[in-house]
């Protein structure tokens, strides 16, 4: 399903636009997620947690998370990325600009230490170029409490020039809806080894490679 979406998006991308709009035929798709299931089963029964959600505010995510009794901090990280690194220059190259990188980190990850009990990053990290992605992960390590989890997705096709962008909406604790919102060039291909290196300060990294070429990663602080 996701693979079909990916193909459709990739075929549609003849131009190197940074953020392309989805075609009219692409509708939100619902898929199950082992990563999401692990994330919520690990915090089940706990109270008064604070979760960071990078998918952008949606009724689905807000309703689901707050109905569990948790506090949600919502931010559309892809939009912030576009604001920080978009414009006339190259999206990836502009991530090397210290001022732009600092702006992005300030807008997305500027919190006191150990503010959160979990983070739903979805696929945002894969669009960050080193060393910015390392700085982002360093900040995540700082703002997450010990033993908390983060969920991140990485597209697993090594040679993909474009990766689809989605708005991720939680359907239930085991499944999510993916609403297409365009596509962008991943900054870097991440395999298991590079992901372990990226999250080396964290206590554990667990992978779920799905049939639709999405690598779901659960990382414990």
């Amino acid at each position, binding site marked *: 399903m996701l693979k079909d979406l990916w193909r459709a998006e990739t075929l549609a991308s003849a131009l190197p636009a940074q953020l392309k709009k989805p075609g009219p035929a692409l509708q939100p798709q619902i898929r199950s997620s082992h990563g999401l299931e692990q994330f919520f089963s690990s915090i089940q029964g706990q109270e008064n*947690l604070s979760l960071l959600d990078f998918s*952008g*505010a949606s*009724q689905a995510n807000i*309703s689901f998370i707050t109905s569990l009794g948790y506090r949600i*901090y919502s931010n559309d990280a892809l939009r912030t990325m576009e604001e920080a690194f978009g414009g006339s220059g190259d999206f990836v190259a502009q991530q090397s600009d210290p001022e732009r990188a600092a702006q992005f980190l300030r807008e997305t990850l500027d*919190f006191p230490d150990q*503010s959160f009990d979990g983070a739903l990053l979805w696929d945002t990290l894969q669009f960050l170029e080193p060393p910015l992605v390392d700085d982002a992960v360093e900040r995540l390590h700082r703002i997450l409490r010990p033993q908390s989890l983060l969920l991140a997705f990485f597209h697993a096709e090594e040679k993909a020039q474009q990766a689809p962008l989605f708005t991720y909406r939680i359907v239930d604790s085991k499944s999510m809806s993916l609403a297409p919102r365009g596509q962008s060039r991943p900054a870097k291909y991440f395999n298991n080894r590079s992901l372990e290196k990226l999250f080396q300060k964290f206590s554990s990294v667990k992978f779920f490679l799905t049939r639709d070429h999405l690598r779901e990663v659960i990382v414990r602080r």
Partner: protein
Amino acid sequence: MSSTPAPSLHPSDSRGPAIIGKSVMIKGQIFSREDLTIDGEIDGSVELHEHRLTVGPNGKLQAGVKAREVVVLGTIHGNVEASDKIDIRKDARLVGDIKTARIVIEDGAYFKGSIDIARPETGKAGGTAPKPVAATAAVNAAAGTPVTASGD
């Protein structure tokens, strides 16, 4: 015995909510004892504890907001406390922390900040642990522990 009715002094008897028009800019504190629509620019604070605040499509608030109900069609930069409900409409933009009993956010709205769902004061018998609800439903659930995360 006079047949002429006494003029009503209650604002809501004779007209709709008070309106701050789109050409108006105010710096300072606004307190209101009636519903208020703001379509202009406010820099300061807005308090309508028992009433509804509507921020119109041209409204731009750089302000903390307290009201019973808040409807946002324009822009708010500031923290919002809505004792009953906040309704963030398509194309609205809200950057700040929200504390409310219920929240409705339309697709297309931009929100950045934290959301605390305030548990109703009345702890009635039969209450159970919160359960996941349908994705499109408004929220009325338990509150999380406040953290010091900033909204901007």
